[in-house]
């Protein structure tokens, strides 16, 4: 069923915009008052000649003590002002896991394995193939080694092996890129939704890289495909409390223990779409990193629709009739994603839209309120606020829905489609593969703003806004380096396999 078009959200947003505008004016009242006064003083001073100015100065009766006190006062105010500002969070660099070629799962392999699995019946095989044909995935997506066995090996040992492979590769590459010493990492946040051993994956990283004993480590689990941005949000909060620190954020999804071995259709979808991937991101609030940091984090907005039962149940882990556990995706997924996005952008909109857009929106709002019927509702154009969009590559349908909802062009969603094609749905790390695509294509310029949108079970919609601090020059070392020249590719609606 088609989701409601965007204008419907305006009704819920009116009061919010007015409140925000009022808050903006109140917060900056001082600036609004001081500036005209200062301008007036300067204008007045310009009218007088130098002698009169000197006479004026003398008449004020300032002696050395007064002057000194005033200067100190101004310095104290300036210092207090700068210290009260929130610490900037810089993204120094990031690295994505590049799978080896022997982990590839071309369509033919997928089809053959599905046929050979003892637990799939003929209908399930045909269903999975139909999904794959329309999925938007390419022939180079990768599954972990354990999933290449027939039947797949879902032991804990194999899951740990996959975790070590993807996470350590990504972190090794990040260390090589940034030159950071493991002992310098102060904060570690790891998110992996479907695999959570004890000791945690964060402890595994501490062990491998010999991180310090006073590290602040957090291991988030079960939070779905939007967990990458939750980790970034947590790292940002931690960096506000700890000056001069480095935060290492690792986002991944471990596929090995989650292969669904049953015949329930709603639960077969993840088998077809989820692929191996990981990303390691280095964040910092050190001022000296500003010189080499790639991006600066401007906003993170989190929206949780779990209070609504339909939204809560749309991505749900459960057991089928035979006791096989898997993740069931409901048919409402697109509609719910659209709703969650609308709620998210009512908060993001006022933070990022340029003043002209907000003014136009306010004017149209006021005009319609006052009864002028000629005015059509004005939909803010998000393309004016951002140069690049990274939409979670959940599947072709999600990207299509978001493109329609936000009124984006094919060029805006190209990064998402190509990342889905080359790497599949790598869950929380997909946003970083998409960012890598934009950089590898040489499109990232200094001053560009990037909007990352992630969706996940719960139902959550999280978004982050980054500003690029330096132009990224090609060629870029990363998972796209060998294949970027072949992209973009045209992805047909249906790839005929059977």
């Amino acid at each position, binding site marked *: 069923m088609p989701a409601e078009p965007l204008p419907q959200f305006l009704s819920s947003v009116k009061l919010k915009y007015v409140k925000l505008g009022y808050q903006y004016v109140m917060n900056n009242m001082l600036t609004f008052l*001081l500036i005209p006064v200062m301008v*007036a*003083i300067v204008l*007045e001073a310009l009218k007088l000649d130098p002698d009169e100015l000197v006479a*004026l100065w003398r008449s004020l009766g300032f002696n050395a003590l007064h002057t000194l006190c005033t200067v100190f*006062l101004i310095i104290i*105010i300036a210092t*207090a*002002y700068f210290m*009260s500002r*929130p610490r900037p969070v810089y993204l120094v660099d990031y690295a994505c896991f590049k799978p080896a070629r022997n982990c590839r799962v071309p369509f033919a392999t997928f089809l053959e394995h599905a046929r050979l699995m003892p637990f799939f019946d003929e209908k399930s095989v045909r269903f999975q193939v139909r999904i794959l044909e329309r999925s938007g995935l390419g022939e180079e997506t990768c599954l972990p080694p354990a999933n290449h066995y027939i039947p797949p090996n879902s*032991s*804990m*040992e194999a899951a*740990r092996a996959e975790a070590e492979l993807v996470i350590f590769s990504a972190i090794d590459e990040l260390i090589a890129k940034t030159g950071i010493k493991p002992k310098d990492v102060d904060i570690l946040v790891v998110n992996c*939704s*479907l695999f*959570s*051993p*004890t*000791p*945690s994956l*964060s*402890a*595994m990283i*501490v*062990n491998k890289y010999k991180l*310090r*004993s*006073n*590290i*602040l480590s*957090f*291991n*988030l*689990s*079960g*939070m*779905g495909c939007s967990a990458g941005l*939750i980790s970034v949000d*947590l790292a940002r*909060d931690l960096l*506000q*409390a*700890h000056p001069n620190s480095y935060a290492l954020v690792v986002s991944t999804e471990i596929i090995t223990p989650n292969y669904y071995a049953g015949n329930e259709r709603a639960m077969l979808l993840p088998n077809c779409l989820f692929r191996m991937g990981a990303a390691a991101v280095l964040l910092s609030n050190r001022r000296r990193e500003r010189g080499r940091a790639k991006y600066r984090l401007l906003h993170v907005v*989190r*929206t*949780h629709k*779990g*209070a609504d039962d339909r939204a*809560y149940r749309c*991505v749900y*882990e*459960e057991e089928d009739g035979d006791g096989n*556990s898997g*993740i069931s995706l409901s048919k409402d997924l697109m509609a719910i994603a659209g709703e969650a996005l609308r*709620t998210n952008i009512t*908060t993001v909109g006022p933070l990022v839209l340029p003043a002209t857009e907000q003014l136009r929106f306010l004017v149209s709002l006021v005009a319609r309120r006052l009864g002028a019927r000629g005015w059509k509702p004005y939909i803010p154009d998000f393309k004016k606020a951002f140069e690049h969009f990274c939409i979670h590559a959940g599947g072709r349908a999600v990207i299509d829905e978001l493109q329609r909802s936000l009124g984006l062009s094919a060029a805006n969603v190209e990064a998402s489609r190509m990342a889905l094609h080359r790497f599949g749905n790598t869950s929380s790390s997909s946003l970083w593969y998409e960012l890598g695509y934009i950089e590898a294509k040489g499109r990232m310029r200094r001053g560009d703003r990037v909007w990352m949108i992630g969706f996940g*079970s*719960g139902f959550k919609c999280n978004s982050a806004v980054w500003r690029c601090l330096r132009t990224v020059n090609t060629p870029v070392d990363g998972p796209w380096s060998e294949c970027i020249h072949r992209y973009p590719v045209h992805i047909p609606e249906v790839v005929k396999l059977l």
Partner: protein
Amino acid sequence: MLLMELLVIISTILLLYSLLSFVWKAFDRWRNQNCYLLEYICYKPSDDHKLPTDLCSEIVIRNTRLSLSDYKFLLKVVVNSGISEDTYGPRCIVQGAREECPTLDDCFEEVNDCMFTTLDELFHCTGVSPAAVDVLVVNISMFAPSPSLTSRVVNRYKMREDVKTFNLSGMGCSASPVAIDLVNNIFKSRKRTLAVVVTSESIAPNWYSGTDRSMMLGNCLFRSGGCSFMLTNDPSLKHRAKMNLKCLVRTHIGADDDAYNCAMQKEDDDGRVGFHLSKNLPKAAVRAFSKNLQRLAPKVLPVGEQALYALRTLRHRLWTSKVVKVDAKSTAAARVNFKSGVDHFCLHTGGAAVIEAVGKALGLTKYDVEPARMTLHRWGNTSASSLWYVLGYMEAKKRLRKKDRVLMISFGGGFKCNSCLWEVLRDLQDGGVWEDCVQDYPPQTLVNPFMDKFGWINEENINTEGRNIPSHINI
């Protein structure tokens, strides 16, 4: 000219106003630095969850793969565990006999019962509406479904859309201070925030059904339990708060391979998943503990005690002819009197041996370790939430008075040792989950009823007549 003077006066007034507003902002931020504990509610399962000794032995015997020596080992562990007849287990094991093949619904039932019972009571006691919660942290180490347990809570209580949720997992028995650390850090950049933390452990999906002895210990010691607590940094709620967080120290020695591998969830030789506790565990615990104390001592001890410690260490270094490496630190630590800066000690109830060892290291008396030992006796090892049961005991015994300082210490897989120091804000006297039984504590004797029933298993020649021994055991 007049206009000029007027303008100068106006700009001076505005500058003064801005200075005052910045001073106010700084003061406000300083006021919001505190982390207050409003209330904590421990989980008390219903009586149909009880795991008395008869049932324990029945469950042990149900595992047909065990040999006689395994039984002897298990019973010895249980006898020395310090656990009573009143501890609780998950319903699917106690009543359903489904320990080897728990369904997802069994796991959810166990977790739902704990989370929702305690949260209902928490919201009722504090009078806070779930819609007022800004931050939600759920910490259950060995069960992480999709959608996460935080989403489960958000769905059940219809929390707001902008609630910040964090689902911590895999962080072991020391995860309570980790959750508090997370919330405390968020408080530093947000004003008037309310946070709810739920901490528990999931036993149903993690029962070990194999024959590896190092993994069977978990089955014997872990019991059902949990706690929900509410934290805030709003100064206006200070009068209702129970305690105020003074400092928190986290130590992670995972960099050392032995420490990392000493408590690990893995598969045994037959492919069954269990929680392996190695023989290196006590050594790793000691190292983590001493590292944690080194960082904790300056924050907790009064200046006088720190000076004394410095003097003692100096004297020891200068006047001792032999160079004693490791012992110097541990004996010097033992000579530090933590009781000068701390009034009450909440020790993680990892086991009788752990409590004794920590008590000895800190120089604690029987009175000081009593809450931890009694908690172990009444509730077993409830993993991350055990600290809150210990705190509940102290409160029920009316030991917590205004201005007292409480130190919580916990250990967990990884290997981590986390500690936090609280200051009590008012005289506390809630019975909580101990209300119906605290008058029976401490009991006259802690002799384990297992000893009476199963002591015969240690005999040389076992007389099998009249004993209820299953047929698959060869004696």
